[in-house]
């Protein structure tokens, strides 16, 4: 009993500890750009503050997912099955690593929107809409990680060595697999936002290209999810 509980507590710590890295850095980037823009356009301070808070709230989503899983794992600490302990640890790894990319990624378009508003405050409405679309697509990678974590938590408590290794592998596949696409989606949205800030008339074209670019970037994330689902359900 002690060993299985230990695994779920470690999983909870990994989920929240790693899960806060991305969002924290991303929100810091947004605030950094907002402060820089304030120095350039002190008159737009109310607008900048409002949009900074919206951008940071969206960036926070990833960390909130990690918090939810972390708390769920803490409540499961009384488990007496070693297999369940391992699946809880895997769920923690999946969501902990899986939020790093989306947190950083959501910070990048937020920061570029702040920069754009600092250059031209009257574009703020268009930029906010575009920023939120970009950030929402960036969150997909975390949502995949959340799905895999929840599946791992809900798994039936039976399985041998093979199944344990497969679940741990699924956690690593989804966790690491979400890092790159999260950051990549953020990069696409960042430069699209800079384009909108330069000339808001191109917004339609840029949104289209941004979504195509983000969809292709997301493919490796989907491979990672497929591999983790195979590891969970087929093995």
């Amino acid at each position: 009993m002690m060993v299985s509980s230990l695994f779920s507590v470690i999983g909870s710590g990994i989920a929240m500890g790693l899960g806060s890295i991305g969002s924290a850095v991303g929100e810091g980037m947004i605030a950094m750009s907002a402060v820089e823009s304030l120095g350039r356009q002190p008159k737009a301070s109310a607008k900048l503050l409002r949009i900074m808070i919206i951008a940071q709230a969206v960036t926070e989503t990833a960390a909130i997912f990690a918090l939810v899983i972390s708390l769920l794992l803490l409540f499961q600490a009384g488990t007496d099955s070693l297999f369940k302990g391992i699946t809880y640890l895997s769920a923690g790894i999946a969501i902990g690593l899986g939020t790093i990319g989306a947190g950083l990624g959501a910070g990048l378009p937020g920061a570029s929107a702040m920069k754009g508003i600092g250059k031209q405050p009257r574009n703020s409405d268009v930029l906010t809409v575009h920023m939120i679309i970009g950030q929402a697509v960036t969150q997909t990678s975390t949502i995949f990680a959340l799905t895999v974590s929840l599946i791992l938590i809900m798994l039936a408590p039976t399985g041998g060595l093979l199944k344990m290794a497969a679940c741990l592998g699924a956690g690593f596949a989804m966790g690491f697999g979400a890092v790159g696409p999260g950051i990549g989606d953020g990069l696409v949205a960042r430069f699209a936002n800079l384009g909108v800030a330069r000339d808001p008339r191109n917004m339609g074209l840029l949104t289209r290209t941004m979504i195509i670019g983000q969809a292709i970037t997301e493919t490796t994330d989907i491979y990672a999810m497929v591999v983790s689902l195979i590891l969970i359900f087929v093995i």
Partner: protein
Amino acid sequence: MEVITGEQLIKALALLAAGLSMGLGAVGPGIGEGFVGGKACESIGRRPDEANLITKTMIIGQAISETTGIYALVVALILIFVV
């Protein structure tokens, strides 16, 4: 406690390795494709008339960046089903 044979241990480690292969293998292509897509958006922001050409080049560039991700997927599937 049941006895674990060497063959089972190899299979278990192969499954863990499949997860690591796909997970770590997806980091690079993800970031690389993000750079391609980002710079394509930046170029379209600067020259909207060339959007078609830029989108075409972006998709080719991303497809090539994707290849290492596909290698990782193939290796992961081999580790799961063949080893």
